[in-house]
């Protein structure tokens, strides 16, 4: 949050307090602004927040611990399907969300450990290949586990997943205040997601400036040296995989409830790559960068989609390039330009895992002596 505020050009450095208010106002007011352009945009914002959560989780693995994971979407899938299993007519189970989301997150964490264990000795490209395979295995399982016993309902996916119900209040229905005002459920989802994102940011920030965060950074910078100062690299890597997966699993649960429907095709390799692109684009290892990256790369293709289709229709009379193709094109172009112009991302990571104010205060005190 502070980092996000500081990252605002011009204002951030001059008046951090004001910048912080701007960030907060934007976070709260965003759906209202989006509403001016139509309900679709609020929906896009909702999805953007889910991607922010995914990016925060993946950043923990890739940015903090330096473990390149190309199958991250699998944890999202685990969370989403856990939610769908435990809260839908599919198994006739309707557990409350505050139970299902933690269970989904825990299942994802377990999946993280299962992925982590055999890959402990792998690094870089090799790790990327195995994790990529893992992501595909999960998707293919989901696609085919409808026979001989129907567990996942195969490619059709699971329908009619329960919406989020907060203390008996179904937020998928519009909220009526008095007779005049109704609040669309998209808004309600936005604020629920925002709360989850805020919680994730706080938790991840705490991890980053802790003993655990430093151990991850140490492993990322030099694994041999990390071992030589007594870091149990095996446990720390497993911890990174499982904690990163936890955020993915929680986001998956929210996704299932929001969408009301899960199917394997939502969890393709392209999604894993899209999330990785977001964190590389925003600034790997930097929370603020990751958030900005996720928001930008979710919103930009949508804007493009709404602009590109009418423009193409006017120019050529029909749509030449499918918006989905354009999205991938845009992601690739964004990556290429980023690598050329700002290889560390939009908001590069500072090498600061300790508390700067502590250090600065100390140094000043030393100087005074």
């Amino acid at each position, binding site marked *: 949050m502070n980092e996000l505020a500081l990252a605002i050009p011009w204002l951030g450095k001059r008046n951090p307090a004001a910048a912080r208010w701007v960030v907060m106002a934007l976070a709260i007011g965003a759906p209202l602004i989006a509403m001016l352009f139509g309900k679709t945009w609020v929906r896009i914002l909702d999805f953007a927040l889910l991607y922010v959560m995914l990016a925060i989780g993946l950043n923990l693995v890739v940015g903090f611990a330096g473990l390149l994971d190309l199958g991250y979407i699998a944890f999202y899938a685990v969370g989403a399907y856990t939610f769908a299993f435990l809260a839908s007519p599919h198994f006739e189970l309707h557990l409350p969300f505050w139970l299902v989301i933690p269970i989904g997150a825990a299942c994802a964490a377990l999946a993280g450990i299962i992925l982590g264990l055999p890959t402990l000795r792998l690094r870089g490209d090799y790790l990327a290949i195995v994790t990529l395979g893992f992501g595909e295995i999960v998707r293919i399982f989901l696609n085919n586990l409808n026979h001989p016993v129907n567990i996942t309902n195969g490619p059709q996916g699971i329908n009619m997943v329960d919406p989020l119900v907060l203390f008996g209040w179904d937020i998928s229905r519009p909220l009526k205040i008095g007779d005049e005002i109704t609040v669309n459920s998209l808004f309600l989802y936005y604020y629920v997601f925002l709360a989850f994102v805020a919680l994730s940011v706080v938790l991840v920030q705490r991890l980053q400036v802790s*003993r655990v965060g430093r151990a991850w950074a140490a492993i990322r910078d030099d694994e041999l040296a990390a071992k030589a*100062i007594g870091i149990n*690299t095996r446990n720390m890597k497993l911890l990174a995989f499982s904690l990163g997966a936890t955020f993915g699993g929680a986001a998956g649960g929210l996704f299932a409830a929001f969408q009301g429907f899960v199917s394997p095709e939502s969890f393709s390799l392209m999604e894993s790559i899209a999330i990785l692109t977001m964190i590389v684009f925003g600034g790997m290892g930097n929370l603020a960068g990751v958030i900005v990256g996720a928001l930008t790369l979710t919103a930009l293709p949508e804007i493009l989609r709404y602009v590109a289709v009418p423009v193409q229709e006017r120019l050529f009379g029909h749509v030449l390039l499918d918006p989905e193709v354009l999205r991938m094109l845009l992601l690739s172009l964004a990556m290429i330009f980023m690598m050329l112009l700002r290889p560390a991302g939009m908001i590069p990571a500072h090498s600061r895992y300790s508390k700067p104010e*502590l*250090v600065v205060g100390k140094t000043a005190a*030393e100087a005074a002596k």
Partner: protein
Amino acid sequence: MITLLEAKHVTKRFGGLTALSDVSLTIRKGEVYGLIGPNGAGKTTFFNVLTGAYVPEEGELVFNGTELPTGKPHLVVAAGIARTFQNIRLFREMTALENVMAGHHIRSRANPFSILLQTRQAREEEHLITERAFELLRYVGIERFADTVSKNLSYGDQRRLEIARALATEPQLLALDEPAAGMNATETAKLRELVQTIRGDGVTVLLIEHDVKLVMGLCDRLAVLDFGKKIAEDVPAQVQQNDAVIAAYLGGHGTKAAGAAA
């Protein structure tokens, strides 16, 4: 004198090459112990066996009366042995202070849950780690670079930082792998002072070094390795007059070293 570390008949082979052959030595508590030998004599291999990076084929290492685990570096550090590397291995993207703070890992207890909940214990520990890391930076004399990213430090300061990071693990035995390599005379003199201070504070030091002057001046006792065998172990004055050692360094009759030197 109390024995701190005892290596018993340590043998390490790499395929057909015997890098260490039946090496036994004892390091006493509170001394500076040197390990010298020509290039390829097995000094660094011994280091790697000692610190758990390699598993020896034969022999064992007894530290403080208990056998050291092999192949598990983090347990060796926990037992009280810290090391530095011949080619400096810092966490390059982290600041000097963070490097030392990372070194406290093994001596701190906060677990993910207490960190996520920011329990008082976790916060206090974090505060303590910062303080102690800063003290260690001051101890090795680079506290003014606390905030500098470690890859931007000068060579000598990087060496010092690596020592500070090793000291952060609160070792009883500090193993330095060629700490003076690449240093100029002033830096070497400062390093010597630092090692003496460390020893004065009760930490036993194991020193691998090429700089013969430094070793002879600094070490209480030293061992000489040649072709994986220990050819001498004594006080510096005696080692200097040892025939086998002279032969190994300068070439002489009847030793393999003569053949290699030719």
